[in-house]
């Protein structure tokens, strides 16, 4: 069963049609590359899935169940995590603190609830091991490479046992070496049965990890096909409109 299914999703802001009848499915463990030019509707689509706002019409199904997200927390509870590009990380905190930010584990200390640092460290070590990342939980994030920072952001997703991880431009603005690291992280997620929706402008990155590519143009889905049946040239054509649909 598809972990995520969109049926005829439309979204309009007044007279502007941002999404027009988009339907797609994402299977467990599948890596989907979501592509399109600026203004094609990628972020609108992601925001609909992440519960930032409801679609004007259409249906969102999670594991076959229709859902109505009213706020991002609803989506998070349903197993959808968004990895924002650098946004959701605090430089002054350790990797472990960042992983647990907003959901810190506590323990009883006399009459007080105090943060359970030990549990945080141990869980973080586990999560980084699952991601095969060398990130050390005690290190401050500000001293980390772009790849390690992504590992921290992705570990947050693992913490809640997410089933779908949405990644917004995870490979923008980092070095080639770190891109490889991030792509590895994506593969790790996929191997654990977590579906990844990768929004990216970087064609080579998408084709390196994605099982499926989805192309949006002016709010419409113009292609949804296996990455192995497509090519960067074709996708470029689809994005720009040189190729009508595939």
């Amino acid at each position, binding site marked *: 069963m598809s972990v995520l299914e969109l049926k005829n999703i439309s979204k309009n802001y007044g007279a502007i049609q941002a999404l027009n009848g988009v339907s797609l499915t994402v299977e467990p463990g599948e890596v989907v590359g979501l592509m399109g030019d600026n203004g094609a509707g990628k972020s609108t689509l992601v925001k609909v899935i992440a519960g930032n706002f409801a679609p004007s019409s259409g249906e969102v199904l999670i594991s076959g169940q229709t859902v109505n997200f009213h706020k991002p927390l609803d989506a998070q509870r349903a197993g959808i995590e968004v990895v924002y590009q650098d946004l959701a990380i*605090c*430089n*002054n905190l350790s990797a472990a603190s960042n992983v647990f930010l*907003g959901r810190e584990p506590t323990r009883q200390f006399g009459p007080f609830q*105090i*943060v359970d640092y030990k549990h945080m460290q141990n869980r973080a070590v586990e999560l980084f091991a699952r991601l095969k990342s060398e990130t050390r939980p005690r290190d401050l994030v500000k001293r980390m490479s772009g790849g390690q920072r992504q590992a921290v952001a992705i570990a947050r997703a693992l913490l809640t046992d997410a089933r779908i991880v949405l990644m917004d431009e995870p490979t923008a603005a980092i070095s080639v070496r770190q891109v490889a690291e991030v792509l590895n992280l994506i593969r790790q997620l996929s191997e654990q049965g977590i579906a990844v929706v990768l929004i990216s402008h970087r064609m080579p990155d998408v084709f390196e990890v994605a099982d499926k590519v989805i192309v949006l143009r002016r709010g419409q889905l113009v292609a949804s096909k296996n990455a192995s049946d497509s090519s960067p040239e074709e996708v470029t054509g689809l994005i720009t409109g040189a190729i009508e649909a595939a």
Partner: protein
Amino acid sequence: MHKKDLGLAILIIAVGTVVYLRNPLFLSPINLGNTANLIGLFGLFAIGQGFVIMTGGIDLSVGSVIALLGVVFVDMVGKFGVPWPLAVLIIILLGAIIGLGHGLLITRFKMQPFVVTLCGLLIYRGIARGYTAESTAGFPFGASFPDLEWLTIGRSFGVPHSFVAMIVVAIVMWMVLHQSVFGRHLYAVGKNEEAARFSGIRTDAVTISAYVICSVLAAIAAIYFAMFTKSVQPSSHGNFYELYAIAAAVLGGFSLRGGEGSIIGVVLGAVLLQELQNLVNLLGIPSSLNFAVMGTVILLGVMADQQFSAFRARKSAAQAMNLLQKDEARM
């Protein structure tokens, strides 16, 4: 203990040693007791200021809050005969309301902390002066409140209770800042509010709480100052105190950009400030130069600290590059 805190502690000991060598009275029980009292009084509200600075904000109204609530407290207890425990509660409640007001204006109305609390500084001072018609508020002749006096200006084994109160507050606030979930969120909000919000933290509530903590501690300090001076002169009581608090926090390693600092740091900052005041007195430096000495030391301290951190950052960057190069050579 952080490296920064350790550096500050060493500085305090070094300055103390120099002062002692020049004037052995520095370590006399009377001098230590008096200095501890001042450290307690100033430390109380400096800790609160630390919380606000942690959010990247600033509270300029502290001195005026101390004057206004001091006047109100003295009048309540001295003039209207309100039982002092009730008066203490009312003062703390008033402090909480003031902090809540600041917090709401800053978060809901998106006003800048500097502007909000600067207006607070003017308003509270003005109310204090207007309410008393510029006359000094004091206790009636011969009035005495033994329990209240024991709590505020009493001493146990030579240790002033204001100092004890400050230590107790520091321990509680240490728990809050370094051990509680709220503390984690405070660090996050101070450094990257957007990230904190994306993580599901109610950032507005965290910020408002910081201002409430600051004003409540200022209210407690107001009671201690009022009892210490026994009379409150509304136009001068607590003048510049907000700057002492900010100076203590900055000396203690707080960044005015938010997200950095520790309770131990701000307490040590308050200690150093009072030590410098004491130095001016003991070494026979004209007391008119008081502020100049303080300003110079803070300036040098912060400058040295930044130079050291830049040096450390360069060193660790060089180390990382070395590792990376070795790594690459192996591949």
